[in-house]
């Protein structure tokens, strides 16, 4: 009988420890892009000073996007944000990449890219590929957050010695119509 009490006591202590640990986690700030929010589950003040209706639990929002380009004028992005942008991007790239090894997209940042007053939601990524000869390549890109298409790419890998594309060794040609003698 006494042993049972000890077991119950130990279990109660463990349960209390679990609850306390969970509470302390909930008071740590969650981090989004540059902003921190805290999620309050239990107000840490006396009951008399806080009304339940005053306790506000912030809604989970989309991360704030970095603005790239001129932002002193009002703007509204011309495209939406699709949570599946990454899988769309992979699908788009797969149409133009025939390597046996897959494509890796590393997400760096979400942004609104403004050019000539036109704003677009984009995802800044690093695209990594491995050639069938085993050599890797990467580049940075902005990807349209709605369509998953690449808007711009830059910073490609620079190799010391490179093999050119092998096209048909006997170049095929055709004579098209010429509008005017050049």
């Amino acid at each position, binding site marked *: 009988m006494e042993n049972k009490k000890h077991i119950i006591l130990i279990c109660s202590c463990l349960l209390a420890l679990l609850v306390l640990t969970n509470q302390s986690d909930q008071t740590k700030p969650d981090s989004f892009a540059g902003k921190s929010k805290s999620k309050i589950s239990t107000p840490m003040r006396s009951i008399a000073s806080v009304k339940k209706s005053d306790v506000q639990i912030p809604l989970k929002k989309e991360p704030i996007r970095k603005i790239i380009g001129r932002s002193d004028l009002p703007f509204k992005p011309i495209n939406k944000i699709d949570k599946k942008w990454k899988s769309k991007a992979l699908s788009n790239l797969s149409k133009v*990449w025939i390597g046996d090894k897959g494509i890796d997209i590393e997400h760096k940042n979400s942004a609104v890219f403004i050019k000539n007053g036109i704003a677009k939601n984009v995802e800044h990524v690093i695209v990594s590929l491995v050639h069938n000869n085993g050599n890797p390549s990467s580049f940075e890109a902005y990807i349209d957050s709605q369509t998953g298409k690449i808007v711009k790419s830059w910073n490609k890998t620079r190799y010391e010695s490179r093999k050119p594309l092998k096209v048909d060794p006997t170049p095929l040609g055709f004579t098209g119509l010429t509008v005017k003698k050049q």
Partner: protein
Amino acid sequence: MSLRDWTKTFKGNIYALVCILVLPTLFSSCENPTQAKSSSLRSNSTNSGVANGASIYTANPVVLHNNTNLTTPNWSDVLTPAFITDNFYLTKKCGFTENDNNFTTINNCIEVKNDRGVANSSLIQKNGTSWTYTTDSDQFYQVNAFYHVSKIQTEFMKSLAFSRDFVHNRFGVNIPAANPYRLGQNFNYWTYSENDPNSTLQVYSRCYLEELNAFYDPSKNEVCLGWNAQTHPNLRFVQDPSIIYHEMGHVFVRIMMNLRNQYTNGFALEKTAFESDLGELFYDEAGAINEGIADYFSYLTTNRKVIGEWAAGEQARPMNESEVQHQGRIPAKLRYPEYLHYMADDPINALEDIHNAGQIVSHYLVTLTQELKDRCSMMSGLSTTAKQTKARNIGVLLLSETFAELGDMTARGSDFLNPRFVGLALEPIFFTNLNSEEAYLWSQQVNPINFRRFFKTMAKNIKYYISEDLCPEFSIDDSEALLDSYGLLIFKSYNDTGRGINQNFPNSPVTTYNMVDGTNIGGDTFIANQPATLVNEANRTNSVLVSKTLIGLPTDRATAFVIDSQAGIRDFLSQLTFEGKPVQLSEELADPRYNNGNVKISPGEVVAIALNLVNNSNSTMAGVQILGNDWDHMQLKDINKRYVNRSENLTNHSGDIAQWEPCQIGGWPLDTEGGVVYTPQSDYANQVVSGCEFPTRTNKVMDETSLSGPTPTPRYDVDAPQPICMVQSSAANETRWISQDEHRSNLGLSDSECLNSNSTGGGVGLDFNPNECLIRVLPGANQATFGKIDPQKTWTETISSNREDGIAQLNSNSFVAMEVNKWIQPGTVFNCRFRVRFSNCQDCYNANNSGEDFMDFDFAGEAPYKVINFSFTVID
């Protein structure tokens, strides 16, 4: 069980629990692979005797043993004691001094690791005060890699600091300095990333590559020094410091190209949308310049005029005509464009490659440096080492000033009138790369850095900073003569008036000397209204300029080469993707699966086209560039009707739908065929907005105000550049050339049946342009280059006649790619207006043989180019 017994058992269990938790931790620290291994790795090596040091190789084995027949690295008796670092790991933060103020990177600027292929490859640490490891071990090579990377990085920092202080502290200022005044404060002395003012360069000393190679990856800021024990058991690229210095040269080029692209706006550090890149395609002159300068950085550190004697073996690249690799073949200088395709180890087989073309750049720079060492009074009496230090300072001064201007994504070119610096209102005044919105497009594609642009700017900086300051013994004539000896005097003026444009006054170009008060920061004054300094034509004896009228499509040979097989186009697109230029195809309307391989252009296909241009002159044309991007070659029929022809606008603005007509260029199309006749106006004041003679000043396509409201109604900008392809319409017994939009309307094609409508369930994109509904030149593959074309030949004839096998291998850079809408009716005739220019062109950069170059916005129009009409019929 009693409580006492339970307690005993519990205590016993506690002890067991402690053992279980603690002991593995103790053992795991000994097994941590990042820790220095057991003393066995140190027992066979000789302590360097230098605190925090090691014995390192100062050069590659071939140089150290003076033996070109070495097949295995032999470090016996050739290692030298040297300080490595007093840090605990092979890392360092980089310091920069600006006017005696010291700055340091926030993060490590360099970390050296072992194997890139190992996830979370870690840093080794020293043992006590020694970095000594067994010779030939991985750790030995990591230490050596760190030594050489750190060495050249320190040298570069000092030279960059010299450059910045020199240009901003000198008296007698005549041109604005391109190096930013706040270079140190803005952390511009090192690479930066999206989230960090300084990003860490990771160097992998044993970087496994299946095909042995070395690379610099700017997207991840990594240098990979290749290794493959199976294919090359005795060779690691890290064993050759000249290769390490070459790769670091690419890092320094990146830094210099982006010196102006991270800045403070008075409150916070900001970055431009894109980083500048030097080199876009598999082959282009920008890439060649990048390679030549990377080689040159190796020379600046080693003082040797060859790179890669060990790592490249027989393919070691010389940087001077007297080097043994040339075997006396070069009678005078490695001249442009004659030697663009030349390889020292295989001189009879021409090969278009940026490393080959880059040799002209390295040879010129090494010769220039040698001339300065020999002539300048500031060099007299100095030791070899001291001379090399001064030479390095001058080299970095010239390169940093050149690249800071050419790579400026803010499009200012200097701090002059930089509103963020001088606190002026944000006026749209720009001096390079058109404007801050289009700077990336302009510098990478429309007016990229080619041999002409680079050497013209270098020559300007030599004039002001060397000939008129540091080394008057090297005169402007000497500089021009040297450039000419390399065939590089291919510009007519130094363009040192800095002509820019205030977009608020598009008809009045602005110069640095015509500004309101003519002064700049710190009270520096510029001489007002000074004309551009012209090149002395008497110095131009080897450099040949050719008129653009002499390039075109042949009439007796194939006009183009086409890739339209499924396998061929997939390989091509895949190659572009690997090169960092992926194209994005329209959904369902054009796809490689429709390709039929009949060497024609058919509906639904994605094709690659290489124009078979012929050089009809008696001199070589070099740096040939073919542009297929949108440009200002059409005019609105009614300037007040600008709404894009799309379903939303047809409801509310059906009477104001835009119609575009082709401007008559080179006599085509005739006015009876729909061409708009106009008189070109070289005087900007006489150009009328929206007219054919008025090239767009901003390159805007859409009026942004039409897209920003709650109900967007897309409207064109009045001078919007348009896609290059038009359609032949034969109706009512008359032939007209019309826009793709007009033709698709006649066919009854909806918006979603057009290419690039982006109609993926979210509606047609707001930036959709129906003038590329049917034929679309794909962004990312809308420009092509040819290294050079010999007289009276095409490019393939140029190459094949200079190869033993007689074969011309077209590279990916030779092609542009096009989508062909599957809804095109067979028999439809298209004409695409490509624009062509080349580096040694007489009339591509200025009008009427004048000295002043065209304004940046002129490159949105016809004037700098030869327009090539590529016409074809879509065949089923």
